[in-house]
């Protein structure tokens, strides 16, 4: 009798274990989202994943993607893979996928109809290698924004500019009022990012696609791009006094009204939000620098390294579908300041700037991100060039353009 009772109890506990949400599995997720707005956004992922009964182990790597990616890659190639990891849309993980180190998510993708819900379709194409899906896009980030501090312009007694040329014209007034006209963090990726934004705004999307996409050195050395370098020279003079390193420190200069503006991707929006500022009232955003309103389809994707542990592999699938679920997409992207990757979600809570972005996206005015067009190797050389250009007042735009064309001719 007693024996039976114990067996029954044991069976019950066993049954309980299976009945409940599959026993909590720890899954380590690495990413480089550490600024205030970013951390708030990633907490939404963690919350949603924990709600499925699993456990999100946060593997945030401070610094920037430039610091984090080498660590992630060496962990994956070194045989100590994490459960999931962030990369930017594009070619950063290309070789890892080709080497068979990443998990094939095709089954899940077909089951959940990723092809139908993810827009623009190019995002899923980026994740697809030889017909198999290897990653899941979670947001759309665009570089093409100019953030302006309304307070700085009010202090300087000039109206808030509506495009790049007006901004350049307002620079002397800002300087007279003791403001830094343009805030730029001194990390290399920020200066080269600002340059390619200028290229889209001044040269136009076609020039951008020819230079970064087709690697056309003749165009890169031509008169259209010369105009872009002229604008970069203006930008260089306007940022001469901004001696900060990180992008969010530069954004903070704009938030506090010490700087007039910043060319930065829409991830800067999260910082304005954390600081409690309202779009339109405290700050102004100009997509495409107010000239060519386009959205770059850059952003972040999650890759899932191939794991041996069956439980963890299962948890990977749960995480992937959690990240793409409409509720998580809305919660995450509102905090992040980015646009959701699916068009069928309700974004009424979005602020003015995000709505501008969604509008452009709906019209289909999109261009690819540099990460999708060039390899890390070529992009590093471009970054090095602009780091040098922005820090060396004696370097002429003509010299810089010559070297740029040279890099483009050898790029892949």
């Amino acid at each position, binding site marked *: 009798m007693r024996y039976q009772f114990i067996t029954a109890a044991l069976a019950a506990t066993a049954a309980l274990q299976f009945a409940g949400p599959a026993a909590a599995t720890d899954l380590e997720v690495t990413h480089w989202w550490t600024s205030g707005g970013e951390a708030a956004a990633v907490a939404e992922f963690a919350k949603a994943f924990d709600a499925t009964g699993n456990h999100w182990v946060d593997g945030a790597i401070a610094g920037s993607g430039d610091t984090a990616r080498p660590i992630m890659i060496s962990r994956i190639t070194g045989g100590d893979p994490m459960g999931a990891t962030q990369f930017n849309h594009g070619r950063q993980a*290309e070789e890892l996928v080709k080497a068979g180190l990443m998990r094939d998510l095709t089954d899940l993708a077909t089951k959940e109809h990723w092809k139908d819900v993810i827009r623009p379709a190019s995002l899923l194409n980026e994740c697809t290698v030889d017909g198999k899906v290897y990653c899941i896009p979670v947001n759309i980030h665009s570089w093409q924004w100019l953030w302006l501090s309304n307070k700085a312009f009010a202090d300087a007694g000039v109206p808030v500019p509506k495009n790049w040329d007006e901004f350049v014209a307002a620079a002397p007034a800002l300087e007279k009022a003791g403001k830094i006209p343009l805030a730029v963090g001194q*990390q290399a990726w920020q200066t080269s990012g600002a340059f390619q934004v200028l290229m889209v705004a001044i040269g136009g999307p076609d020039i951008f696609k020819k230079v970064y996409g087709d690697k056309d050195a003749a165009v890169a050395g031509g008169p259209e791009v010369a105009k872009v370098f002229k604008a970069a020279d203006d930008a260089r003079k306007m940022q001469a006094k901004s001696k900060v390193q990180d992008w969010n420190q530069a954004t903070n200069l704009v938030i506090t009204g010490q700087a007039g503006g910043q060319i930065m991707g829409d991830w800067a929006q999260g910082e304005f939000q954390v600081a409690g500022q309202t779009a339109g009232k405290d700050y102004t955003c100009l997509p495409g620098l107010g000239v060519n309103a386009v959205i770059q389809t850059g952003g972040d994707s999650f890759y899932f390294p191939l794991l041996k542990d069956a439980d963890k592999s299962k948890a990977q699938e749960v995480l992937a579908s959690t990240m793409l679920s409409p509720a998580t997409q809305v919660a995450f992207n509102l905090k992040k300041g980015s646009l959701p990757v699916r068009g069928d979600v309700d974004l009424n809570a979005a602020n003015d700037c995000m709505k501008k972005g969604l509008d452009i996206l709906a019209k289909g005015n999109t261009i690819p991100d540099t990460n999708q067009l060039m390899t890390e*190797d070529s992009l590093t050389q471009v970054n090095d060039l602009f780091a040098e250009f922005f820090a060396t007042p004696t370097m002429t735009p003509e010299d810089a353009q010559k070297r740029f064309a040279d890099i483009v001719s050898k790029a892949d």
Partner: protein
Amino acid sequence: MTEQTARRPSRLFRNLNAKIASIPMILNALVIFLGGTIWTIVYSFTDSRLLPRLNFVGLDQYRRLWVTPRWLVAVENLAIYGACMLVFSLIIGFLLAALLDQKIRFEDTFRTIFLYPFALSFIVTGLVWQWILNPNFGVQHVVRSLGWTDFAFDPLYDSSIVIYGILIAALWQGTGLVMCLMLAGLRGIDEDIWKAARVDGIPTWKTYLFIIIPMMRPVLITTLVIIAAGIVKVYDLVVAQTSGGPGISSEVPAKYVYEYMFHAQNLGQGFAASTMMLLTVIIVIVPWAYLEFGRRK
């Protein structure tokens, strides 16, 4: 006695314990150091990207390396930093040691103070000096708030002198150790030599320059090797202080290697750069080793 000579073991088995004990170290040196080095050199002739692959492209990586402005800046910086570091840390270190050697009071206290920076890592040193040299709250700010309002001192934000800003931090961190080594060398000199020099009426500075320093040769060599190794591998100090900026004006070779291997996902280029670093070390060491050990034969 005769019995022992008869059973004298062959050379190979003499000191067997010691030989067995050193096997791990020998293997380590052969497999990890030598093997790793050869592997790196071989792959520097390939077009390996994120993952190593044996697709030989000849000297392409080296050709690209020597036209890359960032590498050229890095090499130039290392040359300036290396020369200054070697000269100044030896001179300052020796002077401090000589001063401490004058049988002063509180010698222990001073020695601790001078050596203390060495206990800090390069990262901490770099951050501390980044703050000290920051124009908004470092030296420049302090001097300006004392009244000299047009005083300007911000080496870390001036591309032409940024490497000296890094040098200051490195000297602050490293001279303490040089001083201690030198002091040990000075203490190793027989007291009678000093007495003899005094009897002969040789001035103190001459005694140091012509008698003591030549006698300290072994200590000097040790110090030189330690400083030189520190120079070639300088990386963390730069990362903490300027992360290569402004622009690329404080880049160093080790940083180039790291960033091209892991961040630019171009192993071949990183290997080529590290092979060049190895080559430089060999060019410096071989003639010296030849003089040092060749002469003894």
